[in-house]
């Protein structure tokens, strides 16, 4: 009798249970796509951190082992190289300090708002893979370190992306190249503004809404793109990428322009998180601004 009972048990209410599960999953997806369930995800993700930690640990251990058992000669060579690099960077920094103070002085003369001060923290990329159709990484800093949603993430070369999900001890970063990521950028050489969107490919960005005839002179391959600071999410002036190819197809409404990100998106072990202290806005508009004739907004 027993096997018979078990068979009945396993198939009993199977359809009903499946329908309940479909309804539960669908309502959860709907709720989350409308921006609910944030706290549920936050608390649940503390449960999966051990899994991510366990996957990351062997990688970290092997790195630690290789650095521990480096030969003395290797370390000395590396030390010399780093010292040389440090000297070079300090020389550049001296110039930067000079420029910074000059900039502050000029801003004071113009009576404009002082630039925001930034605070930077290092975060490590967990050696954890996310499903391949979106481009995301997981870092080891979370809410306990003050990470917030929408925070800018950069590396030594340029912008990497932004934080889209903050968990207690880790957070998920959407890379620039994710097909849902859009970033307002500016061509350094001409000041032309556009939006860089990812394509879901490893190292490609599309530049949108560029169609004016004079585009040919305003953007060309090799131009450097920086964040324009429009939209408020990203601090302005961080390098984003270089223009790779400009394709002026008359049959298309917009020119097809592609760029290559500057940051080493897939190869980084360490990334930088940026906190921008937003400056206090002046209570009344300065007279120089109000006297200016209102210019028609030029949209490319």
């Amino acid at each position, binding site marked *: 009798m027993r096997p018979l009972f078990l068979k009945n048990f396993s198939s009993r209410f199977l359809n009903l249970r499946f329908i309940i599960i479909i309804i539960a999953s*669908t309502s959860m*997806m709907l709720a989350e*796509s409308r921006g609910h369930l944030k706290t549920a995800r936050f608390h649940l993700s503390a449960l999966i951190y051990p899994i991510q930690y366990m*996957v990351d640990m062997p990688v970290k251990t092997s790195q630690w082992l290789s650095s521990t058992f480096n030969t003395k000669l290797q370390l000395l060579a590396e030390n010399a190289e780093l010292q040389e690099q440090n000297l070079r960077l300090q020389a550049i920094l001296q110039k930067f300090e000079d420029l910074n103070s000059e900039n502050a002085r000029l801003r004071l003369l113009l009576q404009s708002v002082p630039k925001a001060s930034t605070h930077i923290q290092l975060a490590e990329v967990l050696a954890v*893979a996310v499903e*391949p159709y979106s481009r995301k990484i997981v870092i080891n800093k979370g809410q306990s370190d003050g990470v917030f949603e929408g925070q800018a993430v950069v590396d030594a070369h340029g912008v990497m992306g932004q934080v889209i999900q903050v968990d207690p001890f880790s957070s998920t970063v959407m890379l620039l190249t994710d097909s849902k990521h859009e970033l307002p950028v500016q061509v350094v050489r001409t000041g032309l503004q556009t939006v860089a969107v990812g394509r879901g490919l490893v190292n490609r960005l599309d530049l949108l809404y560029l169609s004016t005839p004079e585009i040919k002179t305003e953007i060309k391959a090799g131009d450097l793109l920086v964040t324009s600071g429009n939209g408020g999410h990203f601090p302005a002036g961080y390098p984003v990428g270089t223009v790779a190819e400009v394709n002026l197809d008359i049959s298309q409404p917009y020119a097809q322009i592609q760029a290559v990100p500057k940051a080493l998106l897939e190869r980084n072990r360490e990334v930088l998180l940026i906190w921008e202290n937003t400056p206090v806005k002046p209570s009344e508009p300065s007279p120089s601004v109000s006297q200016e004739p209102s210019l028609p907004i030029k949209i490319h």
Partner: protein
Amino acid sequence: MQRRHSGWIIILTFIASFLLSIMPWPPQFVYWRPDWTALILIYWTMKTPQQVGLLSGWLSGLIHDLLNDTLLGQQALSYSLIAYFVAQIQQRLRLYPRWQQAVVVGGLIAVRNLINLWLQILVGYSFPDDWTWLYPALTSMILWPWLYLMLQDTHRPYR
């Protein structure tokens, strides 16, 4: 012959499958990563449907949603769909020769990937214009016979 299996072994194999599915993977083979959790889920649903089934599928899918940062419920739905079909046909599936089982497994995983990508469209991603979504089904299919033997060793005493 239905008999209870050690719950610990089942849970451990599921945890191992989560670890394997987020392990660093060479970027050129990223689309070929086998669907470890689906393989484990199919095996246990087939072997002991009274212990592993819809609910285990749903919960492991939920863990995948958290790990992969997909909508909560998305992978939960696709994994419980796999569990549902295997629970429906488990008695026939157990009698199939190994290669025929592998074909069914590959088909289920392909359907799961399709559903996942369709659901991704709702969030704003576009459907990939290549066949990469079929690759995990192929690798899982190849792995099935070997995984079957390995998992069988976990609950069958040596003679």
